[in-house]
């Protein structure tokens, strides 16, 4: 075995801490190593050429690149070696950046020792790597988009316009998402009715888009290129083929329920169309509140009134199966329930509302027709306090992250409030004003001048009711004085949180969420649109809260990813999959339970485990669960791991 080791400096990232000369000297002594060489940036063109040249010159049959995480450049280095005829699976990465130089910055000697061990262990592994060929599988050239907000709409349109079929699944009766609830959008003050509804109609009429509103994805099996998806089409109790969207039913319905679309600011009926511009513009019966459906008899006023005869109380939910090659998750975000913020009287005082509720109050097409009134008594609030970072940037009590969009929408709301109530006054409590977008800083400056709002730099401590007013206790850190404001209305810029049900959906999709529930990308910097499961992409705020501009860009990016995946009829997959030693396997089924990808089954005839290599993601969970090492991962064989461990564990 002739192994070549290439040590990357990564500028000063590695060489700044590790002693490269020492590494070279020690690694050269290791059995099987015939060549060691270092270079400042191994991933650069000259770096890669250097490796190619040495493979040829020194007749290397295995290569270890000691550099950064394999998630960054493993593919690059493998392709590079393949171009001069070395099997790509005879190339391994020894991660001496994330594992040695970065975490042990202040301890160069120990870090160097550790790096040497990591490299030697990797050399041991690569020595027994088997040369492999990629697996090739056919693909279904259709895409599933989950979530019909602006991200899902954009992604669907991009893919459909490229000629591929799209299934767009939305759990609410209408697409449109959060954007459809906004009053006007910063920094241009466009109304969503003007800019989003045309796209919604386009979706509804596009020949390549199958719109499944009021539906949920309940099961996903299969793998990249060949997913089988079960979609639950919930019962609307209205035949949408007949419904004309005339809304006569809602007029006669006697049951009033708090409106989800208006975030509780108004009421809807038990049979309803979410909003006038809804797509599809069809009525839905809410089975939890409909008298007929709750009691099984009586009422039925809607059925009597409907001119199209569309009401059908007997309708049942249906499960539909669809085949797709790629999935885009565009499930968006939610806002934190203000009642969690007890110190601010959220949920306790009617006039302490969330910013999303205030959006509905400000919206010209909203329940108040754009007239600004407060929920408790319908009076016009003359003093409004905006509280930013309500639940954000607070690792101690709520969410540690910055919710990113609040600074801008609060400024916008302050301006719209001033426009609506010229003799009113707005106070804005902020910690920092963040305006990171095109035209955002200019918009903020416009608000400062035009809204005449009092910006107070400080975080509000507490809000309670005193003498009929909301007493807001805060501070102005710039003057160094405590602040007390008696407000008529308080608007909390509550933290953005992952959308409800996302964890369950992630389980169905076998993708990961982070500690808060945002969908986890494959790599924050380099693969922000992909999940760790190949063929599943993320679009928009499901990955992390972002504004409309960024959401639309992100969605188009995800669409491009899906299109590029499905641009061919067959795709290649990593051959690093599990193998079963049939002699040893006793068929206990531990691996079946351990496999998240449903790639293993026990053959009923032979009573031993069988791997579906197309489904296997090579995660190794089965290997860890097998008591007798009968199941092992190609090129991560237990024997290789032991060799590695015995080097790492040596004193």
């Amino acid at each position, binding site marked *: 075995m002739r192994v070549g080791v290439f040590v990357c400096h990564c500028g000063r990232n590695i060489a700044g801490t590790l002693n490269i000369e020492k590494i070279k000297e020690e690694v050269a002594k290791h059995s099987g190593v015939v060549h060691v060489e270092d270079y400042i940036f191994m991933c650069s063109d000259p770096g890669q050429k250097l490796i190619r040249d040495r493979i040829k010159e020194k007749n290397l049959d295995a290569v270890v690149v000691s550099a950064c995480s394999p998630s960054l450049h493993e593919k690059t280095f493998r392709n590079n070696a393949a171009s001069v005829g070395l099997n790509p699976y005879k190339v391994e990465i020894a991660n001496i950046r994330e594992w040695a130089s970065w975490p042990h910055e202040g301890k160069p000697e120990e870090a160097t020792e550790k790096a040497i061990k990591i490299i030697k262990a990797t050399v041991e592994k690569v020595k027994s790597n088997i040369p492999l060929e990629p697996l090739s599988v056919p693909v279904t050239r259709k895409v599933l988009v989950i979530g019909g907000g602006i991200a899902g709409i954009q992604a669907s349109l991009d893919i459909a316009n490229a000629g591929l079929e799209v299934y767009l699944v939305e759990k609410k009766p209408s697409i449109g998402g959060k954007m459809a609830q906004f009053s006007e959008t910063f920094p241009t003050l466009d109304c969503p009715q003007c800019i989003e509804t045309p796209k919604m109609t386009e979706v509804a009429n596009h020949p390549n888009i199958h719109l499944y509103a009021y539906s949920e994805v309940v099961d996903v099996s299969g793998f990249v290129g060949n997913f089988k998806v079960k979609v639950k089409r919930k019962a609307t109790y209205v035949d949408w083929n007949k419904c004309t969207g005339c809304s006569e039913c809602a007029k006669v319905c006697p049951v009033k329920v708090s409106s989800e679309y208006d975030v509780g600011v108004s009421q809807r009926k038990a049979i309803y169309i979410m909003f006038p511009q809804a797509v599809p513009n069809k009525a839905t019966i809410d089975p939890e509140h409909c008298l007929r459906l709750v009691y099984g008899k009586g009422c039925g006023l809607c059925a009597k009134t409907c001119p199209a005869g569309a009401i059908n109380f007997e309708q049942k939910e249906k499960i539909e199966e669809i085949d797709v090659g790629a999935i885009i998750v565009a499930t968006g975000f939610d806002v934190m329930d203000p009642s969690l913020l007890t110190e601010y009287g959220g949920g306790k005082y009617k006039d302490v509302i969330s910013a999303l509720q205030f959006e509905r109050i400000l919206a010209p097409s909203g329940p108040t027709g754009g007239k600004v009134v407060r929920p408790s008594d319908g009076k016009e609030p003359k003093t409004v306090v905006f509280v930013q970072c309500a639940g954000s940037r607070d690792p101690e009590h709520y969410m540690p992250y910055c919710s990113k969009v609040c600074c801008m929408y609060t400024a916008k709301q302050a301006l719209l409030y001033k426009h609506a109530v010229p003799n009113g006054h707005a106070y804005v409590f902020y910690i920092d004003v963040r305006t990171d977008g095109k035209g955002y800083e200019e918009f903020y400056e416009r608000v400062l001048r035009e809204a005449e709002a009092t910006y107070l730099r400080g975080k509000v401590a507490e809000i309670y009711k005193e003498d009929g007013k909301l007493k807001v206790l805060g501070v102005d850190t710039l003057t160094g004085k405590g602040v007390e404001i008696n407000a008529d209305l308080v608007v909390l810029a509550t933290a953005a949180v992952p959308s409800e049900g996302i964890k369950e959906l992630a389980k169905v999709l076998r993708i990961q969420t982070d500690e808060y529930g945002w969908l986890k990308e494959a790599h924050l910097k380099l693969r922000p649109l992909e999940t760790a499961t190949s063929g599943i992409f993320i679009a928009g705020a499901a990955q992390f809260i972002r504004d409309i501009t960024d959401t639309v860009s992100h969605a188009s990016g995800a669409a491009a990813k899906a299109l590029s995946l499905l641009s061919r009829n067959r795709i290649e997959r990593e051959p690093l999959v599990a193998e079963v030693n049939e002699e040893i396997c006793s068929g206990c*089924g531990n691996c079946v339970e351990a496999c998240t990808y449903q790639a293993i089954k026990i053959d009923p005839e032979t009573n031993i485990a069988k791997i579906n290599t197309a489904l296997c993601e090579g995660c190794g969970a089965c290997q860890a*669960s097998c008591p007798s090492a009968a199941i092992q991962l190609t090129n991560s064989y237990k024997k290789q791991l032991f060799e590695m461990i015995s080097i790492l564990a040596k004193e």
Partner: protein
Amino acid sequence: MEGAFLESNPENKGNIKKIKESVNRFLQQLLEKKVVEWVLTPYINPENPLPERRIITKPEEAIKADPLTPVIPGFPMSTFVSEITREKPISKPLAVLLKPCEAASLVELVKFRQANLDNLLTIGVDCYGSYHVLDFKKMVEEGEKPFERMINALKNNKGDELFRTACKTCLKPVAENTDLNVGIIGVNNLFIQANTSKGTETLKKIGLKIVENKERDQKIKELIEERGEKRKGMFKEFLKELHGLHKLNKFFEDCINCHNCMEVCPICFCKECFFESELHPYVYEKYIKFTIEEGTIQELEGKLQFHLGRLIHMSTSCVSCGLCEQACPQEIKLFKLCGPVSENVQKSFNYRAGEKLEETPPITTFYEEDLGLTEKQAE
């Protein structure tokens, strides 16, 4: 619980000979009435002091069956069931007699697809305690009757110091997952308890009268409580004795790596043990390599690694049968280690091995949250 008394004649109360006869007659009836075609049971061979395991097919052979014998001679019954049903379910209806720990391990084996219950009529036998094979053998050779000794201890209700440690601390004197139980605890006459509809059907088929029996429940509960106290106390001491690497090494000092403990373990089912495979790190090339590199190396036989490795593999499924300890030629008190460790491991996953077929073993299905929950519950 419901079930049927085998002898209603009050004269038979506690008559040891009658107990044996009753249970054998019951097995005979199973065969006569064709409820099953085969019975797998401990069996008396007059030439051998220890009972054997045999499959009997003829009703008249049932008189030699000895299902209540207070010993597990070598391998547990569940291992035999696994051997004859693992590949495919058994073709003819078979009744199998199991001590509670054997029945529990059978449940575990079914979960791991190492046994198949189709066509099987499982009959648990109450176990008040059993003797070490060597003690049992000695007793028989010296003319003492172990079964009578056990029944007497049961009647006096004070246990027998000679019982195996696992038995003295056993919380499962009555099997929970079998179709039927042969009840000797808390009854004067032999009581066949039906746990499943299949069990009830069986009793009806052989013409027995189904009755309620609450008294037995109470007696069993008391016995388990009493044993529980003992078990807690003993386990505490055991764990103290074994705390720390040094003490563990000392504990296994006499181990000769014969792997008998593994061979008899009812839930050790791998075709090839990892620790005996060529994958195991301590193979001769390694020794040579290390020796070349280091000049000299200490003996590396991986004794502790084997035992701890086994503990990791089986502690979630251990049924506390203590057969490992019985099988050890070096008399290492293995139950001291695996008993308490397994109990604590299972407790932390809120899992009890052998209890329910539908419960999945935590070894593959646990989530991190599970542990948090049980910790809270434990508080």
